[in-house]
């Protein structure tokens, strides 16, 4: 039995040694938000965050993630309020078929958590592992830039409040 922490909740799981994080999420826990399009680490569709780092769940062994904080698309919104990235993807028309979007957003989040004001080069570099066949990336770039601004403003607001308190 191992314990995995996924979206701040603990799960006790009886796993075979070779099972991937993707298999655990989709098949054991029924968390179907995370998709995959190749299962061999080429498309980025299965990206989740492990200890804040964008991680390909199709090649990450679940057992190796014990003790780490795993975050998936299902845990991104704050209650009913969408995460700024989710809202920006909607507002900027960055979503077409939606299949790449959970992985894409998780990669974007890992980038923005480190740097809410990435340059165009940094955005393109961070997303180069995530395939999108519908949208041609341009609206995704716009959405990230906008979400970064919102996140930065939120952080500034929060630190202002902290100082006041």
């Amino acid at each position, binding site marked *: 039995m191992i314990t995995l922490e996924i979206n701040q909740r603990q799960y006790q799981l009886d796993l075979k040694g070779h099972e991937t994080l993707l298999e655990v999420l989709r098949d054991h826990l*029924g*968390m*179907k*938000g*995370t*998709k995959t*399009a*190749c*299962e*061999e680490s*080429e*498309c980025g*569709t299965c990206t989740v965050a492990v200890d804040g780092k964008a991680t390909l769940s199709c090649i990450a062994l679940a057992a190796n993630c014990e003790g780490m904080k795993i975050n*998936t*698309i*299902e845990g*991104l*919104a704050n209650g009913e309020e*969408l995460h700024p*990235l*989710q*809202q920006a*993807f*909607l*507002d*900027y*028309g960055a*979503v*077409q*078929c*939606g*299949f*790449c*979007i*959970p992985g894409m*957003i998780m990669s974007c989040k890992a980038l923005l958590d480190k740097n809410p004001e990435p340059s165009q080069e940094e*955005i*393109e*570099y961070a*997303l*180069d*592992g*995530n*395939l*999108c*066949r*519908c*949208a*041609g*990336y*341009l*609206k*995704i*770039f716009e959405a990230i830039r906008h979400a970064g601004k919102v996140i930065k403003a939120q952080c500034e607001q929060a630190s202002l409040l902290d100082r006041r308190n």
Partner: protein
Amino acid sequence: MKTATLNKEYVNPVGKSVPRIDGKGMVTGQAKYAFDVSFPNMLIGKMIRSPHPHAKILSIDTTRAEKLPGVRAIITAKDTYNIKFGSNEYFFPHTVDQMAIESEKVRYVGDEIGAVAAIDEEIAEQALGLIDVQYEPLPAVFDVQEAMKPDAPQIHESLNNIAVILPVNFGNPDRVMKEADYVREDRFYAPAAHHAALEPHVCVGQWETFSNKITLWSSTQAPFKCREALAKTLNIDLNDVRVIKLAVGGGFGGKLEMLPMDFASCLLSKKAGGLPVKICYNREEEFIASRRKHGMIYTVKSGVKKDGTLLAMTGEVIADGGAYCSYGPTVLAAAIMRIFMVYKIQHFRMTGYRVYTNTPISGAMRGFGGVQAGFAIESHMDMVAEAIGMDPIVFRLKNITGPNMVTINKMVITTNGLRECIEKAVSASDWYKKRGQQKHLCRGIGIGIAADVMGSKMYKSHESAGSIVKVEEDGSVYLFTGAADTGQGSNTALSQIAAHELGVSYNRIRCKSGDTEITPFDTGSFASRVTFISGNATLRAARDAKQQILDVVAKENNLNAAELDIAAEEVILKKDNSILMDFDKALELCYSFNYGRQIIGRGSYNPPTTPIDFRTGEGNVSGSYGFEAQVAEVEVNKETGEVKLLKMWDAHDIGKAINPQAVEGQIEGSLVMGIGYTFLENLRFDQKGRPANGNFANYRLPRSMGTPPVESIMVESNDPEGPFGAKGMGEASLLPTSAAIANAIYDAVGIRLKELPFTPDKIIKALMEKEKFELAAQASA
């Protein structure tokens, strides 16, 4: 309806970039795809595939596999009705050539000869290894030109493996060609490519054995077409088959047809006593056993006058069809006949050959023959213009089609914004400041133009779509459409059309689409037809619903319904726009004691076209036509052979943008797909007919790095036939991309590339040849 949920911003939604109706599900992971469907007791199915490119099936022994614990069902051809299926059944009945499960012969590596279902994927895979098949290998042919030789292996019964010959002939090109001041011929090669939709082909089939009903949850682009093929091959009544399309992770033409997997999942379910069976392709199977874009050898010859008048054109198109016909014949027809929408040409002859090879099946892919043709024709046009010393813009403006004309093959063009598209693309890109002016920087600019249909009537004799708009007692509005949203946003656009016509907020609409048992018939998502055709059906359904509401309001108020309208959530008197009552009140009235009137609007639309005669190429294929001009600016690195795209411009006659942001999304996505085909994509096969690059590591797709900025320019020609003036537009933006880039590369460094994709080695080679040629010319001078 609770007013708190209504957003006044979203009244009159046509022309506004409202958010996707299904967007929240997609950004939160809650959207449900066929990929995500799961049931208790669901079995996992796997296809049994041929390892040979061409072989006779001598025997299949499944005994060992059947004994494997966990295996629940195995099917082979003996369990089937041996009924063939195909996609050009209506126009080319002899091309219906594929069995869902082959019994006598296999024709490509991956051909399906059976299927297994087991309690999990591991056991299903294991079972595949326990099936004993005896084959007698036959000589195979992989090259399309080799396949046409008289002594080539015969794949089907067709002479020289030519499944279809399409002769398209108008006027007298041979005679007129002699009157030309300049004639040139060019030969181009456009390779096979793959859709590479991120969601693989996936289905869950369930055959309830006692009630004899089939349900298929599928990643299809055309649920009604899938239903038809399933009913036919499974020998069951159409109304006993239900195909349900959920969210679809991209299609691009690859999910237009029923595949053997769909057939197998249902039949396995029957054999397993009615348990649902899921079959999901892995990425390798996607490249082998779905569909691919036809590789084409495109030869074109033109004769022009000194003043730039295009007099005559002749040519030949050889299309590599792979093992079966699929949509091939009509793809070939489109590859030849698209030119009539773009150029006024009176004397024309082109012959197309759709040829079998022992490779995976070529079918429909976004652009439908137009991408290969666009590369050839638009590159060729630039060369012709240059040879007579004419600016490529001036040359095109002289020869393009215009509004309100009938083409030589009887296409009826009404609105046509092509001239405006070219002019706007030229002006936005600063064409005349750049063309020929940046060679010292190895920079260049090039153009390509294109036109597209919206609907094609290539699947059935009609191409109608139906819609139902139901308005409930609480004012909620349900739109039922058979149209299949595969990510392009048709549910959103159709909901906008319904809301706008009904006079209510877009927030009211709940859209149910693509379920063959619930929604009206629709031929599917292809040929850029949905906004135009399904949009027109939806417009009519909303109009009908509105009329029913107004009839009740008029009666109650002793007015004539013709005096009333609904706009921005209010019932108004037309004469002075005064408000009579709000929409919710009107619905309360409809469902009140005295009236009890159910509001159910219906709409049907079939575009005004004429049948195409494929013996001549004559016919008005579409109810309207869309146009565009695309400009590319490039910088070539002469040392490495790499091309940097600096910027692209796409001016597009879309009639009217129902949702401008979604239109931009289609332009950008389509154009970037065109960039991939120009520089990266080429589905190759090894000497045994297996894909040489059938995975995402080796089949390279456009990624985020290097995506150029794209300026989308919308030209609104307001088509009188389109819903609110709209035309279809999802495919056109990748038709001229390769040529625009090729022409820009020529402007930059003076090389003409006639073989896609433009890899650095080809560019270096062409640069070296050019240098050699120039040195030789200098030496002889």
